[in-house]
């Protein structure tokens, strides 16, 4: 199997479970996860955070801080950024669905993610 196939296989069951719970298309969840991680090539180590969601003040769960280079005023500088930690990819997918259907997306501006099965 290729790494792309491996990545899809690793989260397919989780996507199907969350799809059954939410009514959202699991194919779309898989496509978005592939896009956000470069087909699984880039996942913050030890986080299962496949959508690179930051840990803002609303997040009460576990978080992990990473040093990241940020481009500010024409220069790359290193800053600290905290990200959510999930125990599984399924938890990450569930949190993503919660975001898309929650108050942070009131005008459905991210409605592409709400395509139904």
């Amino acid at each position: 199997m290729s790494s792309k196939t491996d990545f899809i296989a690793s989260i397919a069951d989780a996507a199907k479970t969350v799809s059954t719970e939410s009514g959202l298309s699991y194919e779309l969840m898989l496509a978005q996860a592939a896009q956000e991680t470069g087909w699984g090539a880039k996942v913050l180590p030890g986080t299962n955070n496949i959508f690179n969601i930051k840990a803002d003040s609303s997040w009460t769960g576990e978080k992990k801080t990473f040093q990241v280079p940020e481009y500010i005023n024409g220069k790359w500088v290193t800053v600290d950024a905290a990200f959510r930690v999930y125990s599984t990819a399924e938890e990450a997918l569930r949190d993503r669905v919660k975001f898309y259907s929650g108050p942070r997306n009131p005008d459905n501006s991210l409605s592409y993610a709400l395509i139904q099965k």
Partner: protein
Amino acid sequence: MSRIVALIFSIVLVFGFNYTKADGTVRQDFTQQTCLSVATDNLSYREAAEQVTSMPMVKEWSALLDSQSRMALGGRALDKTEFIEGNCYWSISLYESNPIQLRLWKIFRVDIRMKNIFTMNDEGDYVLISPPTQSK
């Protein structure tokens, strides 16, 4: 004697084999182990990242985000070396950072020895972008 052998082994393990070819260029052969060792070399990463960020397409992208008060971000925490068919690459990722998440823009692969740069397309395959392929 055994100390000398161990020292030579360590040097080879960390730096790989280097030798000068007839045309004067230095060739370095990597193994999975030496490629992994490169991953701990911040200077090597910085050089690869600079190669990527100095490309016109990346400069244009980061300047565009900057002009719109959006932020470009490098994926140091996610980047690592990759050993593929005898070659060692740095995998360099760039993101747009918004208050909620990092959104992946592109992943680049920099050949440590040849300095060629590839980028991942939508299908997850890598295509050579620098040096640009010569058109006839």
